[in-house]
């Protein structure tokens, strides 16, 4: 279930210290419910250092919840979330805060703070968690803006003045400001035109190449899957599964995802609508 060798990690050699565990984040028999509504049932998933794991699946199948659990933004109803082999719940608040800074999160709608301008949004993590002088923060913020292809003058704009693609880029710049080891991308290309989607996909790849981060990408966009995935995991909505069926219906390489004969996966990756219209 947790095969990790793939074309990308084989072709790009990594140089991590031998003492650092290969698995950076892990869900161990995790279930999660919102009130009486179960979303995830007994999920086990490992994310390995340096890989790009893409989570796919229908809307409402629990992809975003899975990433939030992996990022420690949600507590599982049962089971364990582990970072580098140690349960998240065993960390105290100081450790949790420190370790969380190693994660960067690009939210679905970018989640930029409305009350701040772009500069303040990107500087937020640095100002809250470090004692860096303002001149250094300024330098980092403009570096990140340029890294995502935006000019310095964007720093003065409010989030409401930005297009969807620019918001995603600023969200990415904000997530990268703390130089994270693991990047989470929640539907990074949703709502964007094909050109901007391509730009965001390139930024994901560039971030991966430049920083050698571990990436977890939630998407419905098969172009993104083809472009960035080392490993693909498909979740299926609990409501469509029998009680004993596993919720992870596919795990493998991108090539395998497109070649599989499992009808649930094949329908999703090829965008077949034959039965969905009647649901």
């Amino acid at each position, binding site marked *: 279930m947790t095969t990790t060798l793939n074309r990308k990690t084989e072709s790009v050699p990594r140089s991590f210290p031998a003492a650092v565990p290969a698995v950076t984040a892990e869900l161990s028999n995790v279930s999660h419910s919102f009130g009486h509504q179960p979303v995830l049932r007994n999920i086990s998933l490992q994310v390995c250092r340096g890989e790009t794991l893409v989570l796919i699946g229908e809307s409402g199948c629990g992809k975003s919840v899975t990433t939030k659990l992996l990022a420690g*933004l949600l507590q599982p109803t049962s089971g364990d979330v582990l970072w580098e082999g140690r349960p998240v719940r065993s960390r105290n608040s100081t450790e949790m805060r420190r370790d969380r800074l190693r994660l960067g999160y690009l*939210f679905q709608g970018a989640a930029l703070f*409305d009350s701040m301008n772009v500069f303040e949004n990107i500087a*937020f993590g640095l100002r809250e968690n470090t004692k860096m002088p303002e001149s250094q923060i300024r330098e980092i913020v403009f570096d990140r803006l340029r890294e995502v292809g935006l000019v310095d003058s964007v720093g003065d704009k409010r989030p409401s003045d930005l297009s969807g693609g620019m918001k995603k880029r600023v969200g990415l710049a904000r997530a990268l400001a703390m130089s994270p080891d693991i990047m989470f991308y929640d539907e990074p290309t949703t709502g964007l035109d094909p050109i901007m989607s391509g730009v965001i996909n390139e930024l994901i790849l560039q971030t991966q190449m430049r920083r050698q981060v571990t990436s977890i990408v939630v998407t419905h966009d098969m172009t993104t899957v083809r472009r960035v995935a080392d490993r693909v995991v498909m979740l299926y909505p609990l409501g469509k599964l029998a009680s004993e069926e596993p919720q992870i219906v596919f795990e493998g390489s991108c090539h395998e995802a497109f070649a599989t004969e499992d009808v649930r996966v094949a329908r999703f990756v090829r965008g077949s609508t034959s039965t969905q219209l009647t649901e």
Partner: protein
Amino acid sequence: MSASASPIDAHPSASTPIHGLGRMVVDSIVVLGDLFTFGWTLCGWLLIRLPRARVLWPILYEVGVRSVPVVCVTGLFIGMVLAVQTYDTLKQMHFESQIGSVINGTLVKELGPVLAAVMLAGRVGSAIAAQIGTMKVSEQIDALSALGADPVAFLVVPRFLACFLMIPALTMVAEGVGIFGGWFVSTQIYGVSSHLFWTYSDRFVTAFDVITGVFKSMSFGAAIAIIACHRGFRCGSGAEGVGRAATEAFVASFVAILALDFVLALLSIHLLKLLWALGIPVT
């Protein structure tokens, strides 16, 4: 967010009015428990870390300065209405010269703190709930956590401090303007002597009344901030959820203000009696 099934929910077929009542009671206890836990977390952060001036000042301005016009207008009319309503009754008893004591006593002890608090709940409480609710719906609260900031420390503590610290000033403004409105109607329209208006006011309104009024207003401010932030954090999804959170924040704050007013009025009367018994002057 997640909740274990209550004993009532263990019987899905239960749908009689008694079961409905039971479910409502259980839900209310769960919400109250959650509210107290939320308040406890806030107290912890108040002790650990105060907000930065850059974060606190704009909220102080929004809560305090921008509430002044609405508090002035309502305070003025309440003072004038009090004068209109009490003058005829007092005149029938030939006590119209004592109208200042009635107006000023009522404003300082009750109406000033309650009026300022209701205005704050309506103008600021609903806005806080809607703002935090929108941040929750648009994942900005998750973004705060992801960026290493505690949402309670960053969002709730400054709003709590702003409500707690600014409401005494707003109460004073409401009382001052209300007293002016009452004085204007009494002296300029009904012809009561200005000298008698202030003399009787001074005789019947004590320092104790002013202090208890300010203390009351601080309690109201704290309750409004905690309730509004809690409703925002527990906001449902979408625009409907945000709207409901704003409404619930106002309604719950209003009920809390009235309940606290009753409890604090009882306590202040007992405290006054105790001070008299101990021979401590309260004028």
